[in-house]
């Protein structure tokens, strides 16, 4: 009988790209449930719209590049799911559309598509939308007010705690509401408890590691502790800083994007810490109330430097470590005759 040969190993782990992407999709679903609970079914419409647009754009770009779109590749859908979560629930469809198009057709596919993009597509698209429509991107609806499918001027829009923080005032919201997400803010970024549950789920599933989110939140809280913006007790100020804006959802989804993050552990910690510190530090300087996405994009550009530096470090450690230096014993040619029967 004739069989097809195949290189070792002959057993493979069950994890695959599909399972990892499915984990992330599953992790976003509770956020959409909370959004529906707070803002009505418009959240689902936005999510579905984003998914459809980005998946179609992904497939179209791959066809233009002469590749066959892969059904199992859910990365475009994940981008489309994340973009509405980073924007207010009252965001217009055109905003979602342009954000998804920018993310896919500018930040992802020209770089070679899946697995080769330097910048996180969701972050780039949302940043583009924020810069193009700052007014509507930073005005949020009030929870428990059902939004119509088409948002018009009758909807009451308010500013988020992050804005009052950027003005230097203490938001008069108690922390429990912020934990539960009962505050105006980005559609998926406010309900902290659900986000932390998603993070735990992803870590248990080993889809993401613990290093980067921990380092990210650590760096953010360190800078927030050193340079407080509100005259509150230190820990309260830190809690406000962490729970306002997109920091936590970034710690769950955007930081852990495997494509645009370093690979080794020490570089991961460095990258997460730098992103957190940068995004909180530039809340003082920047004009926009939210600086996390931009800080993330800037850090994405430095990932290659960090990675090469990590390789240098590992190289030096291999040099130092005697156990790794010894190569496996090569079998002398005299013994090939025994194995020759197999060949």
């Amino acid at each position, binding site marked *: 009988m004739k069989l097809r040969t195949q290189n070792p190993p002959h057993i493979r782990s069950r994890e695959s790209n599909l399972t990892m992407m499915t984990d992330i999709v599953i992790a976003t679903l509770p956020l959409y449930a909370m959004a529906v609970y707070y803002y009505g079914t418009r959240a689902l419409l936005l999510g579905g719209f984003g998914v459809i647009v980005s998946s179609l754009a992904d497939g179209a770009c791959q066809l233009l*590049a002469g590749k066959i779109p892969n059904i199992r590749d859910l990365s475009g859908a994940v981008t489309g799911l994340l973009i509405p979560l980073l924007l207010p629930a009252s965001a217009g469809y055109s905003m979602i559309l342009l954000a998804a198009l920018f993310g896919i057709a*500018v*930040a992802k*596919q*020209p*770089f*070679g598509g899946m697995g*080769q993009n*330097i*910048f996180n597509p969701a972050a*780039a698209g949302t*940043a*583009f939308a*924020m*810069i193009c429509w700052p007014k509507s991107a930073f005005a949020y609806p009030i929870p428990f007010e059902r939004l119509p499918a088409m948002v018009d001027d009758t909807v009451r829009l308010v500013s988020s705690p992050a804005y009052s923080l950027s003005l230097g005032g203490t938001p008069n919201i108690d922390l429990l509401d912020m934990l539960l997400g009962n505050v105006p803010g980005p559609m998926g970024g406010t309900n902290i408890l659900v986000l932390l549950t998603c993070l735990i789920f992803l870590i248990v599933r080993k889809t993401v590691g613990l290093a980067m989110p921990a380092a990210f939140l650590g760096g953010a809280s360190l800078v927030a502790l050193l340079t407080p913006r509100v005259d509150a007790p230190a820990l309260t100020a830190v809690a406000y800083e962490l729970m306002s804006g997109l920091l936590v959802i970034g710690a769950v989804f955007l930081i852990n994007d495997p494509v645009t993050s370093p690979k080794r552990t020490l570089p991961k910690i460095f990258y997460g810490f730098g992103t957190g510190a*940068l995004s909180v530090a*530039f809340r003082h*300087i*920047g*004009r*926009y109330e939210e*600086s996390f*996405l*931009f*800080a993330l*994009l*800037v850090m994405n*550009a*430095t*990932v*290659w*430097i960090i990675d090469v530096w990590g390789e240098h470090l590992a190289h030096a450690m291999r040099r130092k470590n005697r156990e790794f230096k010894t190569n496996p014993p090569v079998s002398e040619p005299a013994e090939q005759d025994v194995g020759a029967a197999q060949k």
Partner: protein
Amino acid sequence: MNLIVSMLAVLVSSAVIENLLFARAIGADHILRQTRSYRFIIEFGLGAAVISGVTVMPLWWLSQTFGRESWWNYARSMAAVLLIAVVSLLLTIAMAAAGRIQRPMRLVDQGAVYSASLAIVLLSLTAKMAFLPSVLYCFGASAGLAAAMILVHAGRERLELCVLPRSFEGLPITMIYIGILSLAIYGLIGHQLPT
């Protein structure tokens, strides 16, 4: 103390906020050819810093004296060009005398340094700052330019590892890369003036 803080503010704003590459695209076409190594980028930044920093001193004095006249608008840039030429000649001669020049810079690279330092000088003059800040501005701006070029160089190295669509290789993908980076920095800082 206040002095130091204000000087630092000038440095940071010239290096980051009004970054020559990301905010004004100066040096964008030189990047594509001439970022061969990090060492070259460092040389580039140092040369621009020295030339512009030395050139801005007499120009600042001149613009203080003739700032009112209408013809100064025209004379300024011409004077800047000539002064930069003189300063860079002196610099070249000095380095040659010190024996620090292994291989002379290509003319195009010299042109890049020229235009970069010209832009820095003119910008620091249009900002109408005091004397010391305008000198510091030159240093900060060239440092920011060098840093931006290093970022772009790292991006190009990373892009070499990607299997790009064929029509995007080289200049287009680099431009898109710089564009997204400039978007990020714009959003981080908030306010840039596109002139």
